[in-house]
């Protein structure tokens, strides 16, 4: 049992953490969500079909936890997390610009409707395949493709609009 947990953390831990971090913008909150995901997976392992990969199931739990977090903290705006801005910018000016761009990215992401945001996060942050996203969100393949396309389009347009001001 412990080995299964260890393997799951090794394979999916960081990807779930990144998803939660982008969702919440807070590294402690993201660690809590990641830990709760594995804890729930461990407690309900009898519900898990071992003939299938654990990824989509874990991401389903993580997404539900993130949604709960969003529901409980609706009035708290998601803030920019330093954890994402670890790129070694050469000088202070570049560092400042990178920080500003990151801030704009987070703001823009959180302006997107949640149905598009989730698909984008699962694809671009957690690097799931279409099939895995379908499984994690209980959606039809066409719907995933559609939301991904519309979400990406909205994100790019909103980013272009925002970055004109930097």
């Amino acid at each position: 049992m412990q080995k299964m947990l260890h393997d799951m953390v090794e394979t999916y831990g960081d990807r779930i953490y990144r998803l939660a971090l982008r969702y919440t913008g807070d590294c402690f909150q993201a660690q809590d969500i990641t830990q709760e995901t594995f804890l729930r997976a461990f407690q309900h392992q009898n519900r898990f079909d071992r003939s299938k990969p654990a990824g989509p199931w874990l991401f389903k739990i993580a997404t539900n936890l993130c949604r709960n977090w969003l529901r409980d903290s609706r009035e708290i705006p998601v803030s920019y997390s330093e954890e994402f801005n670890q790129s070694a910018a050469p000088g202070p000016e570049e560092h400042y610009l990178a920080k500003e761009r990151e801030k704009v990215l987070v703001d823009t992401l959180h302006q997107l409707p949640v149905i598009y945001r989730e698909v984008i996060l699962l694809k671009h942050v957690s690097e799931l395949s279409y099939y895995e996203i379908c499984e994690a969100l209980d959606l039809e393949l066409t719907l995933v493709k559609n939301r991904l396309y519309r979400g990406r389009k909205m994100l790019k347009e909103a980013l272009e609009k925002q970055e004109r001001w930097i």
Partner: protein
Amino acid sequence: MDQCPDVLTIQAVLDGEEKSEKVNRHIQNCLSCRQVYRDLSGLVSAADRLGSEAVLPDQFYKTLTARVAAKPFPAGLVAAVMFLFTFLSAYLLEPGYIQWWLSVGMTGQISYVLDIFFDVLFMLQTLGPFWLIITLTTLVVFEVLILNKLKVVEGLNDG
């Protein structure tokens, strides 16, 4: 392939999800599809900026296994033991009391509980003013304590 694939199929090619040779060849040879492909690449690179290299802290697995190993508090068991203890001690101290409870049936038990409830209510009515004074005094004491604590927290007591 004569007909152009739709934008979602081209997107699937770009994401590495659609591996059909026919579609790939068509995109390479069709000017408008190549343009759609280029536009989609722009959307993908914008969204790719969300990706990160953030990793879980080293002690994450240790904390997780500690939580997994921790046994949940057996609330049901504790409640059952407490009930059994109360029942047995009542029986041992006054066997007739439990026998009465068991003999009167549900209606007898309900009327007994209601009797006690009204008795207590009458008693409280008699002691009304006394309880009012006690409650008000407690509230005032608590408020003073809380206000004092707030002053300490906000630093108003400093200096």
